[in-house]
């Protein structure tokens, strides 16, 4: 600690310097964040269309929100989207990181390549995905292929499981510690399954479907598990963009776990699953905390992709809270509804802060455990 007296003349100079140093940033933060947040709160209590004067209406806008179908839809969509995407990207990133961990050769190049999606703008990513998700686009082709090759895929899976089980069972008669997914046997199992499937498929014994249906991924009102299919597609864009970064975060975390912990566990006879659950997951808790926090904040403000979709999808299938705010501030073909927009914005702010606080509380207790 510095040895100057904070109440002496030197302390005054320090205070003055501090405020001067902070002044430019503070002014911007004051105008564009504090004042803006306060003004949004005020607008949310008024009826205002940008043309005539704002009129105080109390809490009427909040009441109107509760009866606005689009708002309720936006709230529901936002929450589901945040939970689904955050969960998916966290779990997938962790699994992939564990999988890839231990590879030394080619890792630097892979890291650069995997980082690529996170430097590309959301506009470009979304445009590419809109193109991929055309009703007759490549994603549809892929889905049709899977549907058509259902028999072959099932055959592959069956042979794979059968061969692997047989090999593992045989080895277990003689040795301890043979994992069900023994990596060495898996090579033979996959090769065998592949050979059998290709053989049966070329001999036309396995039937192939002829589905060639266009599929609506974006322009649709369908829902799946309670969330619009459109938003599932947006979730795919989101997970695609964020997984590499999160995976790299986990990889860095895995590097810092001391290797002898696993060795000790091995000596104690712990299975790899146990080691994963008891060592890897708890020691990665700080990374998980960061990943989940980033994920929740990022997904709750989902806006860019939804706005870029624009008329490519119905509003009900893509509306999120952030977009609801914009949609009311600048509605197509109507006068601005600033009051409703602001009430939606305040809801979004409260929701974000609430979730972050809640998660922080849970996250800390998790880390203490």
């Amino acid at each position, binding site marked *: 600690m510095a040895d100057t007296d904070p109440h002496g003349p030197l302390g005054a100079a320090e205070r003055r310097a501090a405020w001067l140093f902070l002044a430019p940033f503070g002014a911007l933060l004051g105008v564009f964040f504090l004042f803006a947040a306060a003004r949004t709160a005020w607008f949310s209590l008024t009826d205002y269309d940008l043309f005539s004067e704002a009129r105080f209406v109390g809490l009427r806008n909040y009441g109107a929100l509760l009866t606005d179908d689009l708002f309720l839809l936006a709230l529901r969509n936002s929450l589901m989207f945040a939970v689904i995407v955050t969960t998916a990207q966290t779990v997938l990133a962790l699994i992939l990181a564990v999988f890839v961990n231990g590879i030394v050769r080619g890792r630097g190049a892979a890291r650069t390549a995997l980082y690529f999606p996170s430097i590309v703008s959301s506009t470009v990513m979304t445009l590419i995905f809109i193109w991929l998700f*055309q009703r007759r686009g490549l994603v549809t082709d892929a889905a049709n292929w899977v549907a058509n090759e259902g028999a072959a895929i099932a055959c592959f899976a069956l042979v794979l499981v059968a061969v692997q089980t047989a090999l593992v069972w045989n080895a277990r008669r003689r040795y301890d510690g043979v994992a069900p997914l023994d990596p060495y046997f898996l090579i033979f199992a996959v090769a065998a399954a592949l050979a059998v499937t290709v053989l049966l498929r070329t001999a036309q014994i396995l039937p192939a479907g002829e589905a060639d249906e266009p599929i609506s991924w974006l322009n*649709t009102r369908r829902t799946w598990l309670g969330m619009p299919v459109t938003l599932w597609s947006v979730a795919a864009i989101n997970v695609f963009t964020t997984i590499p970064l999160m995976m790299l975060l986990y990889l860095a975390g895995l590097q810092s776990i001391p290797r002898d912990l696993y060795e000790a566990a091995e000596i104690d006879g712990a299975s790899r699953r146990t080691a994963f659950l008891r060592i890897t997951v708890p020691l990665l808790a700080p990374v998980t905390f960061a990943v989940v926090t980033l994920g929740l904040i990022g997904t709750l403000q989902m806006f860019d992709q939804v706005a870029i979709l624009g008329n490519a999808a119905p509003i009900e299938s893509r509306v999120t809270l952030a977009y609801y705010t914009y949609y009311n501030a600048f509605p197509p*073909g109507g006068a601005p509804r600033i009051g409703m927009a602001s009430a939606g914005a305040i809801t979004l702010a409260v929701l974000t802060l609430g979730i972050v606080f809640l998660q922080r509380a849970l996250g800390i207790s998790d880390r203490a455990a």
Partner: protein
Amino acid sequence: MIDLPIRLLAGGFAALSAAVPATAETVRIAGFGGQDAAVVNGLITEAVGDRIAEAGIEVVYEPIEGDFSQFILNALSAGTAADLFYVDIFWADAVFRSDQAAPIADQSVADALLPNLAAAFTRDGTLLGIPKDFNSLNVNYNVDVFEEAGVDVPDADDTWAEFEEKLVAVSDALDGEVAGLCLVPDYARFGPFALATGWEPFDADGRTVLDEDFRRAFAFYTGMADSGAGVVAADVGEGWMGGCMSSEKAAVALEGGWMIAHLRDAAPSMVWNSTLMPRDPETGDRGNLIFTVAWAVNPASEVQDAAQELAAILTSPEAQQWVLEEGLAIPSRADLADNEWLQGDDVAQVASRNAFQGTGDGQVMPYEFGEYGGAWMEPINSALNAVLLGERDVDAALADAQAALDRLTGHDG
């Protein structure tokens, strides 16, 4: 009264400056992007370029891609809007209600307009925008496709059933390589079928009732996807009927006069023709929608007079005749209605004539929905979309739409 002498002075000055173009006054105008950008550009450079220069006006044109209504209301509230801008009939109300259009000063301009068009942009007896032209839908068809399929081309006497039959026959004869028609979930294309049944958008109480007549039209339109007469436009990678026709994915497109310019650009070698919309077999009537866009003057404009004058020039007989002969839209001036050009046999002339006749034959309504604006169409479009995508049946979709419309119009009991 004080400003009268000043106005006279200003008028005198304007007359003087017309003779000797002094410093040109810059008038910013805003309109749609895409094809309209080229049209307005042609208008201000070719058709009436001299008159604009004589008036001492320099025009800066801002074509807007994307949602124009959102853009212009935004710009009006921000005070950055152009001096003269498009107002589409179906969202005009949002602009007029917030007093964002100056009254049209020149009474002679107002008097020259077709009365029903002028009425659409008049509030409390004041004309707030000059309709620049108008359009309606007709049946545009690819002659080569019908010839190859050996099917009679659509004609003005076709009923819905006959029209559908021809489309199915085309599609069948060509093994589905070309669809009969691309279907879009849009009231702007489906509307004429609903109107042909005698259905009216609003009943006496101002409620929208999706009755039996509406249901019949709705079932026919969406049913064309099942009968093989049509495909959903998005299925063949297109966003509108005209795109399907110009890319030869569909034999027919229900579009307006803008198809003339579109096909000239997108499918210059296509041999095509047009005819009137098919008739409802029960009422024997056709239906149609009148599409129109007006020029409105920004009341906050600093070059008010120049903007008013420019609006008059852009809707003058020369300008409108040019637009007509370019094959773009029908003049809104009554004195141009009886037009020699419209009698010709060129495909552009036939298509324009059909668009003109379409507005006077059968059940025709302007493409506007009063205070509700475009929001009124949303439930109907949404229902069309759900049924065309096979996600809902007709009755369920219409029940949803009826409920949404009732909420919108405040008739939910």
